């Protein structure tokens, strides 16, 4: 793997160019421009600056020392649990509108804890339920925040 700076610089360069291209597609009709500035002026300036700085990062020699900038280390990282956690968060976002706050949160927290290694159902219950219920009480009763019950449940209720 190459040095961190090179890879970072390349990614940012690509991003700046993509951003700049999207900026060019922005509307700059007369009504919107005022004082010589249209909605796309600043984005274009930023895209150019970003590309320039990214190039500097890629091409710059290391700051005065003989060592090369650190390489990108990925192998020693504990990927599986982290990726599973991301998946669990995505699932939470997906089920939340359908199952509502309480059920979704219980599922989310339990799944996340299982991913990280907790197997005992008792510990899971103890850690997950009180927090969820307490928070639901505080939010909906004490603070009067409306937490929609969840589409699936509303459908069941309508039957």
């Amino acid at each position, binding site marked *: 793997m190459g040095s961190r*700076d090179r890879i970072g610089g390349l990614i940012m360069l690509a991003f700046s160019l993509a951003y700049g291209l999207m900026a060019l597609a922005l509307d700059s009709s007369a009504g919107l421009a005022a004082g010589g500035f249209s909605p796309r002026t600043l984005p274009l300036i930023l895209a150019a600056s970003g590309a320039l700085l990214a190039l500097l990062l890629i091409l710059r020699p290391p700051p005065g020392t003989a060592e090369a900038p650190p390489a990108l280390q990925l192998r020693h990282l504990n990927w599986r649990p982290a990726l599973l956690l991301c998946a669990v*968060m995505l699932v939470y976002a997906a089920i939340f509108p359908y199952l509502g706050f309480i059920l979704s949160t219980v599922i989310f927290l339990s799944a996340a804890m299982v991913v*990280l290694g907790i197997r005992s159902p008792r510990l899971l219950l103890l850690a997950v339920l009180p927090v969820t219920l307490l928070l639901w009480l505080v939010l909906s009763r004490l603070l009067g925040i409306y937490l929609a019950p969840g589409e699936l449940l509303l459908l069941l209720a309508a039957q």
Partner: protein
Amino acid sequence: MWQGIETGLVTAFSISNLAVVVVGCFAGTVIGMLPGLGPISAIALMIPISYGLDPAAAMILMAGVYYGAIFGGSTSSILINAPGVAGTVATTFDGYPLARRGQAGKALAIAAYASFSGGTLAALLLLLAAPALARVSLSFQSADYFALMLFGLVAVCAFAGRGQVVKSLLMTVFGLMLATVGTDPTAGVPRFTFGQLDLIDGISFLLLAMASFAVSEALMTVLNNEDSARQAAKAAAAGAGSLALSKKEVAEIAPAVGRSSVLGFFVGVLPGAGGTIASFLAWGMERGLARGAARAAFGKGSLRGLAAPETANNAASTGSFVPLLTLGIPGSGTTAVMLGALLSFGIQPGPRLYIEEPAVFWSVIISMYVGNIVLLILNLPLIPYIARLLAVRKEILVPLILFFSLIGVYLVSFNVFDLWLMVLVGVAAIGLRLLGLPLAPMILGFILGDIMEDNLRRALIISNGSPAFLWARPSTLFIIVATALVALFPLFNRRAQAGEGG
């Protein structure tokens, strides 16, 4: 004036009002610890409750809630790197590293003392200079604000340390790009929204902060398979006196606190600038003023680096009462809600308030300050217990952190789209961290981006398209020159260091 102050003191210290403050502070701290329910929501929620109280008591309640919520925000910034309030983002830079080293108690204590000192010094300045300050509030125009924001951005990058300047600038630009997502501030046109209605209002600050700080940090600890924070917290809990500050440490942070109070107060006096900018400027300033090892410690757990933004933040809150009370102009979302509250109590802020009803004016100010005091007294004993939170098992803590971050953002917008976006941003933030790119300039660029563009375009409309606005007014010119000097600093630094070596 003194009679007004006297009346204010008597009102504020009555038994019932003190009870109200205590309740408010407590409620505020709890609400503030849940990221997403920041001071604005906390105060808005208190408004209906306060209709039943008399105006003085209601203001005191809101003061307690407000300061409590800010302290709660500092708490989550320090303990779990989750800055729920924009003004506490700079607190994470040094507060979180301190907590990871097992010094969470000390960090929280410093935050409490620094905030209190900032509020006190700012209140003194307010006392001395309130009427004159009203004029200062009105002396800043759009061109000046633009210059000030530019200065802030350049300052944070210029002092970034050797080899880091380009990366900081790059991330600042990245943050500015993220700020352009949403509706254009001047023409109302959607930009970079990919046709998604959910992005019309842009990416919310809370979402970006939570995802790039808290979520990425939680996932990083999993990636690195470390439990060092917990070991350290256990060690600290077993050890003694985690709150105590040695005389040497106090002497070290005292000057930083003094300077940051003044800076914070005057930044707060400018309507629209607020605790956030003040905290970043203070952090940048202290880092610039530090030398050698002290400067290198910034961002890694420097006591000065923690004290400066906390002080400035609180001082700016006090400062923002100047435009609020003397001109009826709210300088931030929080003061806007308070303005609504004041109006509903029949208190009409404005230049006439100070002249015709000094008793009311000073009661409000003193009530706010009492909240500050009570917060310190209430929360200091709680700190050791709060710090113990870190001792919870990682397997339970990480899911809870993720949950609080996600739900905190959801509670602001009630929009499930934000949850998806958070995961995306969190993963991207991990990528950036692995590449060694600093997140602090990114978030500063994001926060200031909107304001900068807004003011820049307004300045251009007013100057009819000419760049002359940069030097037309002496105040603007002054700030621009200061910015240029600061921008050249890295070059001087490099030359000086090369000279030493060679």
